[in-house]
């Protein structure tokens, strides 16, 4: 094989000067620049940027020599990955069994009523993203909600309403 052909497919340069690409590159290097490092690398991108956009997917896929469609297939298979930027705040309602039978559906109703968004959506002002989790493993504290990475236990619709109101006021 001609070396010229190979060099055409040498590792591409990061999409821009953003320093966070160095973290992404470090993960890819650690995993030997191998296609099997795809998921780990996507984790790093999401941690650094908050979500996976087309540019990032293209960069990671080409760098790891993963077909574009496969990278997209993987990124959309796993619910932990998101292709859209999240809101300023996130509110994750746990839908584990214990939380479900202890009132998680009522919490979701509260979110819907107060913010007008369904799980997976972000309010139109970009303030709050609402998500559901399979189970946070905080079943002893059911129902549980994560407000911006902080787990809150035994949440009531009233308590939730107050918390959401805090976010709404600038």
């Amino acid at each position: 094989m001609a070396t010229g052909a190979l060099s055409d497919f040498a590792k591409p340069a990061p999409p821009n000067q953003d320093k966070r690409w160095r973290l992404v590159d470090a993960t890819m290097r650690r995993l030997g620049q191998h296609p099997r490092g795809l998921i780990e690398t996507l984790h790093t991108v999401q941690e650094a940027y908050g979500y996976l956009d087309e540019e990032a997917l293209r960069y990671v896929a080409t760098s790891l020599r993963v077909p574009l469609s496969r990278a997209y297939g993987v990124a959309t298979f796993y619910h932990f990955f998101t292709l859209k930027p999240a809101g300023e705040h996130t509110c994750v309602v746990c839908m584990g069994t214990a939380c479900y039978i202890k009132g998680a559906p009522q919490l979701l109703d509260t979110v819907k009523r107060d913010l007008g968004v369904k799980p997976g959506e972000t309010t139109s002002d970009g303030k709050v993203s609402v998500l559901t989790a399979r189970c946070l493993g905080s079943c002893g504290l059911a129902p549980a909600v994560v407000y911006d990475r902080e787990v809150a236990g035994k949440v009531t619709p009233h308590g939730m309403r107050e918390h959401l109101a805090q976010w709404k006021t600038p």
Partner: protein
Amino acid sequence: MNRPAANIKTLKIDGRDVTARPEETILEVARQNNIFIPRLCELKGLSTVGACRLCLVEVKGSNRLLPACVTRVEEGMEVTTSSERLDGYRKAILELLFTERNHICSVCVSNAHCELQSLAQKLGITHVHFPYRYPVVAVDASHERFIVDHNRCILCSRCVRVCEEIEGAHTWDIMGRGIDALVITDLNQPWGSSESCTGCGKCVHVCPTGALSEKGRSVAEMLKRRQFLPYLTLMREDRE
């Protein structure tokens, strides 16, 4: 090619004595002996995935049903390819496929040439007793020669496999999961804008339904050619 007799397995399919090479699957052996086993995801020349579950057969001594496309023959195996139970399951699976997307045979390019449609007839399906889903899914006609109509897709993944394994482009893959899964090209972009697609059309011809078709075909006009698949496989084997 001569093989030592010890390497030949003997088994029974539907009461018939048949012989097979050890690496062969129940489906391959059945096919050689003109015993019909329905299937939609399997296609000779592509890897097997065991996904459509139509080729499930009963094997004596196993309490589970086994997919004929991936189950290798064993000495003394007794296989039943058709029974009231199996036929019931197969009909239910086909009916589920009809409910999943919008399969309107009467206006489909593949009408009369569709594997889903003909299997349904063969298995005696005259109506679907599960409720239909009626999803909103797109038709992408951005490619200059081909069309993908997700209304007709059964997610058999033949297009994904032929593109990866035979053409080597890996333009197709599946995105999402569960009932929301969809076949996509590259980064879920219009097929016409795909960078990796070579336009070879193999995906169109392995597609069992009207999901992938050539442009300019009207109802019932899309005939699929498959002869290239065994041909390519054979020619590549000989090259080694």
